[in-house]
């Protein structure tokens, strides 16, 4: 689905992404891990058109999409969430979701002025859908709350909810789990799997919670210092010495053992 070829993104002299090449297969849930500052978010930003690459190409279904603006990529079915929540603070949570669907009739002025009936009908449909999403994320009680005034974790959920408002082909999730309650995160994981299975979404997920990665992802790609360090199945990557040294550390191993002991 997505092929990244020898991608570079430099900030001044600093190489945040330094010749990364990788592939995200259609229908997969690809995990992207790596130490802080490895260049994961920067890679997302380049793919999603928020930053221009210094060099290199990004292909989507064989088509070169390098440097296309974000709104065009959205229309091609490429969605992303932000690591640091980017909510529309002065709008209610419901509106935050309702604004997402593309090409709404009511978004052209002529319809907004003179074609209210058709607009209203469409609105009803979108509203219902948004309500369903809020329900699913367990925050339907917040539907009328301003998005600027909800808790940090709730913002993350909203961020995720926006990707559920449309039929995407590929969704990039940047640390949806950080700050989200683990019980809820499990539910979210289930949802991701369901979207993947039932609707055929492709996912690329950045996450530091290895349990979460292990539950969902195959394959897993580990980045470090702007390059791809290792890739493969979760187990392969988890046991890769370089990954352990750069990213997982030995503490985790202990913890994992402990987990096993606990059952």
């Amino acid at each position, binding site marked *: 689905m997505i092929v990244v070829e020898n991608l570079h993104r430099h900030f001044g002299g600093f190489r945040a992404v330094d010749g990364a090449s990788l592939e995200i297969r259609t229908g997969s849930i690809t995990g992207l891990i790596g130490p802080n500052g490895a260049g994961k978010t920067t890679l997302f930003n380049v793919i*999603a058109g*928020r930053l221009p690459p210094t060099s290199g190409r990004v292909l989507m279904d064989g088509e070169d999409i390098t440097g296309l*603006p*974000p*709104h065009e990529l*959205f*229309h091609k079915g490429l*969605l*992303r969430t*932000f690591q640091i929540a*980017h*909510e*529309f*603070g*002065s*709008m209610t949570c419901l*509106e*935050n979701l*309702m*604004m*997402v669907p*593309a090409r*709404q*009739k*009511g*978004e*052209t*002025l002529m*319809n*907004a*002025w003179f074609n*209210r009936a058709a*607009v209203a009908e*469409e*609105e009803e449909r979108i509203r219902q859908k948004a309500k369903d999403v809020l329900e699913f994320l367990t925050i339907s009680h917040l539907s009328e709350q301003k998005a600027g005034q909800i808790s940090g974790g709730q913002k993350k959920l909203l961020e995720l909810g*926006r990707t559920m408002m449309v039929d995407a082909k590929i969704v990039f999730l940047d640390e949806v789990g950080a700050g989200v309650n683990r019980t809820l995160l499990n539910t979210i994981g289930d949802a991701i799997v369901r979207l993947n299975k039932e609707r055929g979404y492709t996912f690329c997920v950045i996450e530091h919670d290895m349990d979460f990665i292990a539950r969902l992802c195959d394959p897993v790609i580990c980045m470090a210092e702007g390059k791809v360090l290792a890739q493969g199945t979760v187990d392969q990557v988890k046991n890769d010495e370089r990954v352990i040294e750069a990213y997982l550390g030995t503490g985790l191993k202990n913890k994992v053992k402990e987990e096993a002991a606990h059952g």
Partner: protein
Amino acid sequence: MNRNLALFAGVALLFVLTGVFQSWNLALSILNLSLISAIMALGVNIQWGYAGLFNTGIMGFAALGGLAVVLVSTQPVVEGWQAGGTGILAGLFLGAASIAAAIFAYNRLPKGRVRTWGTLAIVVGGFFLFRAVFDPAVTAVEAFNPATAGNLGGLGLPATLAWPVGGLLAAGAAWAIGKIALGLRSDYLAIATLGIAEIVIAVMKNEDWLARGVKNIIDMPRPWPVPYEVQLQQSAGFVDWATRWGFDPATASSIVVKLCYVAMFGAVLLAVIWLSERALNSPWGRMMRAIRDNEVSAAAMGKNVTRRHLQVFILGSAVVGIAGAMYTSMNGMLAPGEYNPLRFTFLIWVMVIVGGSGNNWGAVLGGLLIGWLWLIVESVGPAVMGALVAGLSDGPLKTHLIDAAQHMRLLTMGVVLLLVLRFSPRGLIPEK
């Protein structure tokens, strides 16, 4: 809701009091200006309140609206056209063509030195070509009877037609400005638009062939169907009617004329507010608010931020242009020296903020209130000062203060502005 009604009633009361204690003519004349201001405030609110664009070029768009009145409604100056009309048109065409050619070359040529120098050569060559054709034509046109003409004149069409044309002219300018400047943020955009407005005014001041520059155009025809007072006073039917109802014909004629304006401006205001409200309370409005809140995120959600900014910038500017045309045609005069940022930009901003940005009704309320205040303090300021110093014994201090009383206008404006913002910091009718 009740609170808002009360606020509007309060402002209405101000006008009524002005009518009762000063004169109805004054009240109506202030009302007309306030209505125009309210429309401009709506235009600004569309840009700022909906999309967060900090446009301080209002003055320029209003002036372009005024220019439209000249171009549409004054009589053509035949001698001017004969002297250099074609030359001026040809010059302008050449100028536009060389800009277009430069842009074309810039887009087509491969990046590098060839492109830079090629484009530059086209620009420079075009400039001199333009000057060579344009300058002599201008001199010829301006030489014809500079005391009363010296320009090309207009089309001699009905003045009411100038209003939509003013809107179109402003919209066209907004399109060009938007293409250049809308990438800028907050205060940078503000100063850029302010600068562009100054450029527009500079052109209007110095290009005499266009609308006589600083020599002004006076006595422009009134918009249909507003009558002239003098005509009314001469019409036996009107005088009869006035005396039958116990009015003085002179006063009655002025009032009738002003009421005509009130009706026309009011109609435009209602139309604009109806359209604005509909737009705001629709998915379009929601999308605009989203863009205002967070552009990055809106773009990631598939909204074309640049296009939407341009759209809303053009719309708002067109509304200001229409209001600017109405202003000029009500005065019957275009004086480019009149356009200064304090009056035509910042006063409008005060209206928007005091009224409550993001809320159409707030902008209207602010327009009416501040419009009233701006004109009424002219007489109230000195009166207040007179009352304040009444206790002082005669002497240089007292004379000094009384002489300085005229400046109470600005002082009073300032105090009221501060008081309103103090007690309702988000404006009188805040955004929901």
